[in-house]
């Protein structure tokens, strides 16, 4: 194969081969399903947040306290993808919030078609916010768009402040980075929040880096203020474009499912 001139030398003079030049994303099918999910959310003015972290960083615990803080303002639902069991969904439902469990089995990430299936178990018209708890994994989920509006990446103080440098693909996707389990900071004295923030900046990511603890409701104010701001901004965007968005919303083509 002639790399330098791109002439496809191996196929020259051989009449039974054909080289087709394409320039497309490998995950094109997933991207299209994700766009379809986003259209679902937008048509109902629902804002979707994708929560990603290493296993046990505190996604479910954060959702529990966040629900308590916001439930009087927003109608919330959760898509749970973290475990093959119903444990996390049960924790959310115990708070009277609808939760759909995606049973990923041994899958290492959620993809857009799993979320699409889950959407049909949610009454989007009666919701304002959907939180998607992704599989606990700092590698795979970063590659798969689900149709969310924003990415939330959690890093617990017990994991070390150099995680963003070790998992740059994941931390580059973050629209906000939450440093969780801050109540443990006094005992985890080698975790430096400034170093964690510097590591995020080194990825050319301007996302806010916010320290909090799911055990201390007081520490959630910056995070919940960010959520309110994003919900307002994203919904304003829907309103401006709602005409075209709704017109483009073709319904459930099987090819995309």
């Amino acid at each position, binding site marked *: 194969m002639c790399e330098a001139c791109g002439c496809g030398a191996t196929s020259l003079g051989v009449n039974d081969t054909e080289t*087709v*030049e394409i320039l497309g994303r*490998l995950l094109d099918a997933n991207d299209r399903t994700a766009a379809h999910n986003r259209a679902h959310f937008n048509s109902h003015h629902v804002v979707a947040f994708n929560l990603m972290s290493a296993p046990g960083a505190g996604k479910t615990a954060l959702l529990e306290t966040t629900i308590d803080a916001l439930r009087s303002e927003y109608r919330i639902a959760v898509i749970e993808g973290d475990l093959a069991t119903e444990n996390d969904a049960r924790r959310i439902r115990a708070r009277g919030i609808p939760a759909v469990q995606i049973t990923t089995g041994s*899958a290492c990430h959620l993809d857009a078609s799993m979320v699409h299936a889950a959407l049909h178990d949610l009454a989007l018209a009666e919701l304002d916010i959907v939180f998607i708890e992704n599989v606990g994994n700092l590698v795979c989920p970063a*590659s798969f768009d689900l149709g969310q509006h924003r990415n939330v990446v959690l890093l617990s103080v017990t994991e070390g402040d150099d995680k963003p*440098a*070790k998992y740059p693909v994941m931390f580059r996707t973050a629209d906000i980075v939450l440093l969780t389990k801050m109540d443990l900071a006094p005992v985890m004295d080698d975790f430096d929040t400034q170093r964690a923030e510097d590591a995020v900046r080194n990825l050319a990511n301007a996302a806010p880096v916010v320290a909090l603890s799911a055990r201390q409701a007081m520490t959630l104010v910056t995070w919940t203020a960010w959520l309110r701001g994003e919900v307002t901004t994203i919904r304003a965007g829907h309103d401006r474009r709602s005409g075209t968005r709704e017109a483009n919303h073709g319904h459930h083509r099987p090819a995309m499912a």
Partner: protein
Amino acid sequence: MRRSRLKAPTIMHELSICQALVSQVLTLAQERAASSVRQVRIGVGPLSGVEWQLLQSAYPLACAGTRAEGSRLEIEHTELRVRCRSCGIDSVVAPNHLTCTACGDWRTALISGDELLLLSVELEIADQKEELARV
């Protein structure tokens, strides 16, 4: 190296990406009435989120039993390049250090390096004369 702890999930991850790749390739082969696939070329950047060595080992598994069985996967590695928003200079950088090498500012824009692209497919087209002769 850093992935060794995560080996099981990552191989599965690359396998699912290969399955997406092979299904695109097979659609194309079908459209062009190809009898088989010879070679598939993809472009992979250092920030694509996939480990190319694992892609290479997952590829034959995804091809097994299809028209793409036996085809070669050729991987082109793209360069990780950023442009400084403050001084405008381009730098070639490491995946966890996307700062400008000229002025040190972290406010840069990615020019290339996160791609996961299907570049070309080399197909074997059934010889029509031979087909006719056999009829």
